[in-house]
C-alpha cells in the first residue's frame, strides 16, 4: 500500500538526543506524547490514592477514619484529578499525540510549538491544582455547584478553578492541532474514508473539545469572579440563579464524557481489527456514529437536572434525547461483536483489554439509558447507582481503552515487548477487580445510598465492604503495568516493526519510528484495514 523503508538501526526519535533539553524543548509529537504519559501517570497514581482513601473510609458505616471535611476533600480531589488531569487528556494527549501524525502519514502535527506549549500548560495547571490540594484542598465536589462553591465552601476554590481554567487551554491546543492536521496533512491518497477509526474518534473528540471547552472555561471564570467579588450571577442571596450554573456546567461536562469515550472507541476499533485481522464490520457506520455521538452529546445535558425543579417538559425532551444517544453506541457494540465472527482472534493482552472494554461499556451504556428514563432517574439520581454507571462508562470505557492502547502500541513507542504472563494477569485483575468494585454500587444506589456520603446506614455495609475489596484488587491490577512496562524498557524482547502483523501506516515504519516518522513520504493506495492485501503479500 505504501512505499517505505525501515529506519537505519540506532536512529529513532528516542535516540535522537539524550539531554534533558532535547526532551524539554522538543517539538517532536512523539516525545511530547512520552512527556504527557509521564505527567498523566503521576496524576493517575495520585487520583487513585485519593480513591483508595475514600473506599477505606466507606469500609465501615460510621465515619471513623477521618473527619467529614477531610473525606469531602478526598472525593473532590479524586474527581477533579481523575476527570480533568487523567480521563480528559489521557488518550488524546498520549496515544493521539503519538499516533495521529503517523497514522495520517505526516511528519508531525500542524503546530508543533503549540503542542509543546499544551504540555507545559497542562503541567502548570497541574501544579496550581496540586498547590490548592497541598494547602488544604477543596470540598465542593468536582461539579462545583453554586451557591455552595461561591459562598459556603471552605477550601481553595478559586485556586483550583484557576488551575482548571489553564488546563482548558491545553485541551483546546490539542484539539486544534488534531483538527488542522487531519484536514491538511493527510498523505497523498489518504481520503476521509481510508482513515483509521482511531483518527475518526480523535476528529470527533476534537470537535467536542473546541466547542465545549470555552464554555466550561467561562463558567469557571464566572464562578471564581463570583466567589471573589460577589457579583450575584449564581447566588440567589445576591439575586443570581444557582440553576444557571448547572446548565452551563453540564453543557460542557456531559459532552466531556464523550471526550473521554470517543478516543477510547477509536482505540478499541484498531485493536479489534488488528487482533482478528479483519476490517471492522460496518466501518462507515462506526465512523459516522462517532460524529453523531459527538453532536448529539451536546443536546442531553439536562438529564443532570431532572430533579432540580426544571419544567416537566424540558425533562421529557432531555430524557428522550439522552436515550437516543444510546442507539449509535449500541450499534457500535454490535459492530465490534460482528467483527469477531470468522476472525482470526489472537488472545494477546491488548485484545483482552478490548473485550473487557466491550463488557464494561455495555453495562455502563445500558445503565446510562436506564438513568435517562426520567421516571426511574428520580429515584436513583445522585445515588451510588449513578456513581457505578459513570465509572463503568468513564473508567471501564476510557481506562480500558487507554491501557489496551498502551499495550497495543508499546512496542511501536519503545521498540520493546512486555512479558505476556504479567500483562494478561493484570488485565484479568483489572476486569475482575473493576466489577467487584462497581457492580455492588448499582444495588447500593437502588437501595438508596446517596453519593458523597461519609457515613451511611448500617444495613448498607456488606455491599460497601465488597466494593472496597474490589477496589483493592483493581488497584493491584492498575499498578502492575507500571512495573513490567518499565522493566520491559531494558529487559523486554526487542520488537520488530510490526509485531502483531497489523495493518496501518504506523506499522510500516520502524519501531520506534524515526524523528520524521517515515524515511520516505508514504502514499496510500488502499482502504482501511485491508487485511486481504496483507494476506496476499505475505502469501
Amino acid at each position: 500500500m505504501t512505499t517505505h523503508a525501515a529506519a537505519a538501526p540506532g536512529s529513532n526519535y528516542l535516540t535522537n538526543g539524550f539531554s534533558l533539553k532535547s526532551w524539554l524543548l522538543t517539538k517532536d509529537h512523539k516525545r511530547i506524547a512520552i512527556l504527557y504519559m509521564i505527567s498523566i501517570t503521576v496524576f493517575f497514581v495520585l487520583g487513585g490514592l485519593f480513591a483508595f482513601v475514600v473506599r477505606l473510609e466507606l469500609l465501615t458505616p460510621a465515619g471513623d477514619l477521618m473527619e467529614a471535611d477531610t473525606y469531602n476533600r478526598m472525593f473532590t480531589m479524586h474527581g477533579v484529578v481523575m476527570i480533568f488531569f487523567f480521563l480528559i487528556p489521557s488518550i488524546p494527549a498520549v496515544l493521539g499525540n503519538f499516533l495521529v501524525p503517523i497514522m495520517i502519514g505526516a511528519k508531525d502535527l500542524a503546530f508543533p510549538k503549540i503542542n509543546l506549549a499544551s504540555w507545559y500548560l497542562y503541567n502548570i495547571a497541574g501544579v496550581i491544582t496540586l498547590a490548592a490540594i497541598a494547602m488544604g484542598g477543596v470540598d465542593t465536589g468536582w461539579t462545583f455547584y453554586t451557591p455552595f462553591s461561591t459562598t459556603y465552601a471552605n477550601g481553595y476554590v478559586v485556586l483550583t478553578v484557576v488551575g482548571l481554567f489553564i488546563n482548558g487551554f491545553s485541551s483546546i491546543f490539542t484539539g486544534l492541532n488534531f483538527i488542522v492536521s487531519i484536514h491538511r496533512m493527510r498523505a497523498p491518497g489518504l481520503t476521509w474514508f481510508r482513515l483509521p477509526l482511531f483518527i475518526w474518534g480523535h476528529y470527533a473528540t476534537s470537535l467536542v473539545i473546541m466547542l465545549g471547552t470555552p464554555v466550561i472555561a467561562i463558567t469557571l471564570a464566572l464562578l471564581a469572579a463570583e466567589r471573589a467579588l460577589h457579583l450575584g450571577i449564581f447566588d440567589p442571596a445576591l439575586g443570581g440563579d444557582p440553576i444557571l450554573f448547572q446548565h452551563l456546567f453540564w453543557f460542557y461536562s456531559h459532552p466531556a464524557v464523550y471526550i473521554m469515550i470517543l478516543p477510547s472507541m477509536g482505540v478499541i476499533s484498531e485493536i479489534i481489527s488488528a487482533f482478528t485481522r479483519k476490517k471492522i464490520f460496518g466501518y462507515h457506520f462506526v465512523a459516522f456514529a462517532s460524529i453523531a455521538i459527538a453532536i448529539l452529546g451536546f443536546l442531553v445535558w439536562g438529564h443532570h437536572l431532572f430533579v432540580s425543579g426544571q419544567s416537566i417538559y424540558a425533562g421529557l425532551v432531555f430524557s428522550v434525547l439522552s436515550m437516543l444517544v444510546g442507539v449509535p453506541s449500541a450499534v457500535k457494540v454490535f459492530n465490534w461483536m460482528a467483527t469477531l465472527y470468522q476472525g482470526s482472534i489472537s488472545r494477546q493482552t491488548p485484545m483482552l483489554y478490548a473485550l473487557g472494554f466491550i463488557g464494561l461499556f455495555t453495562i455502563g451504556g445500558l445503565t446510562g439509558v436506564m438513568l435517562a428514563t426520567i421516571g426511574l432517574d428520580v429515584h436513583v439520581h445522585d445515588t451510588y447507582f449513578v456513581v457505578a454507571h459513570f465509572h463503568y462508562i468513564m473508567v471501564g470505557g476510557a481506562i480500558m481503552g487507554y491501557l489496551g492502547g498502551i499495550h497495543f502500541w508499546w512496542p511501536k513507542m519503545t521498540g520493546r515487548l512486555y512479558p505476556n504472563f504479567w500483562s494478561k494477569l493484570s488485565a484479568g485483575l483489572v476486569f475482575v477487580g473493576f466489577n467487584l468494585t462497581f457492580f455492588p454500587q448499582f444495588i447500593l444506589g437502588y437501595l438508596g445510598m446517596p453519593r458523597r456520603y461519609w457515613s451511611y446506614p448500617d444495613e448498607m455495609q456488606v455491599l460497601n465492604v465488597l466494593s472496597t475489596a474490589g477496589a483493592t484488587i483493581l488497584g493491584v491490577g492498575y499498578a502492575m503495568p507500571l512495573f513490567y512496562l518499565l522493566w520491559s524498557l531494558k529487559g523486554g524482547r526487542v520488537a520488530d516493526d510490526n509485531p502483531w502483523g497489523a495493518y496501518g501506516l504506523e506499522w510500516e515504519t520502524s519501531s520506534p519510528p524515526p524523528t520524521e516518522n517515515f524515511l520516505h513520504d508514504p502514499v496510500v493506495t488502499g482502504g482501511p484495514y485491508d487485511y486481504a492485501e496483507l494476506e496476499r503479500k505475505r502469501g
Partner: protein
Amino acid sequence: MFPEAASTFAGEVDTLYFVWIAVSLFFSVLIAAFIIFFFMKYRRREWYQYGNQAEVKTLPLEITWSVIPLIITLAMFAWGAKVFFDLSRPPVDADAYYAVGKQWMWKFQHPEGVREINDLHVPVGRPIQLTMTSEDVIHSFYVPAFRVKKDVLPGRYTTVWFEATQPGRYHLFCAEYCGTEHSRMIGSVYALSPEDYESWLATGVAGPTLQASGEELFEQFACATCHQVGDGASVDATRLARGPALRGLFGTEVALASGRTVTADESYIRQSILNPQADIVAGWQPIMPTFKGQVTAEQVNALVDFIKSLDGEPAGVPGLGEDLREGAVPALQAATDSVDELEGNRPDAG
C-alpha cells in the same frame, strides 16, 4: 436488591426498573455469549492466519440492530414519562406541608401548625405535598422507600408529593451534596395510620398554623400600610393604596412594568417580599422596601401561605383592572415623599 416500597409510586418505579433489568440482562448476556463463543471458535491457531476477508453486506444487519434498540428505547421512554407525570403532578386535595432545608437539618411544618426537625410524621393514605425551600445551599429531599426526590433550592420553591401506603419508619436523606455534614443531614419519615397520626398530633405542641403566623407577621411588618387585604368594603381604600391589593392575587397572571407577565405563584410572592424591585407590577412605583434579612425562610413561608389563603375578589373593586391601577398612580405619588426616599429603598443602596 429492592428497598422497602412504601408509597403509591414505589411499585410503579420498581416494575419499570425490573423490566429494564430484564432487558439489560438479555442484551448483556447475548453480547457476552456471542463474544465468548467467537473467542473460542475463531481462535488464531497460527501466527500467519488471517480473518475471513469476504466482502459482506452490512446494511441489512445494521438496520435491524438499530431499529430494535430504537423501538425498545422509545417504548421505555414513554413508560418512564408516564411514571414521571404521576410523580410530578400532585392531586389537588393534597395536604400542604412545608419544608426548609438548612446546613444541616430539615425543618418541617404541618398544615395543623406542628413543627418538627429532621423527623416528619405523615398519615398513611393521604397525598402529602411538601413545598420546600432552602436557607443556604442546594439540598435534595430524598425518601428511598417512597422513590421520590426533589432538589431544595435557595431563593425558589420546589414541591414534591407522595402518598405513604405502609406504616413504618423510613430513611430521609439529603441527596445533593451540601457541605461538611451532608451525610448527617438525614432524618426519618414516620408514616402513621390516620388514628395514630391524630393522636401524635394531639400530643405534639401545636403552634399556630402557618397561615395564622403569616397573618401575624403581616401585621408585625406593617405590610397593610401599603397592601389591602380587607374584604373589599371600600373602593376608596384601594385608590389610596400605595401597593397592589393582595386578595385573590394568588394564581393570577400579573402584568409587570417591564411588559412581561408572570404567574403569582409561591416563588413570585417570595421574590416580591425579598427583592421587590426585581418585578414591578405595571402601574405601581418601585417603593416597596426589601424584607431580606428581616424575615427568615420560614417566616416567608408563613407569609406566602397567608397570602395564598386570601381568596375571593380583589379588594373593593369588581374586576379590578389596569385602569384602576393606573388611577392609583397619582394618589400614590401624592403619598410618596420624594424620589430620594425611593432610592433609599433600593436593596442595593447603602
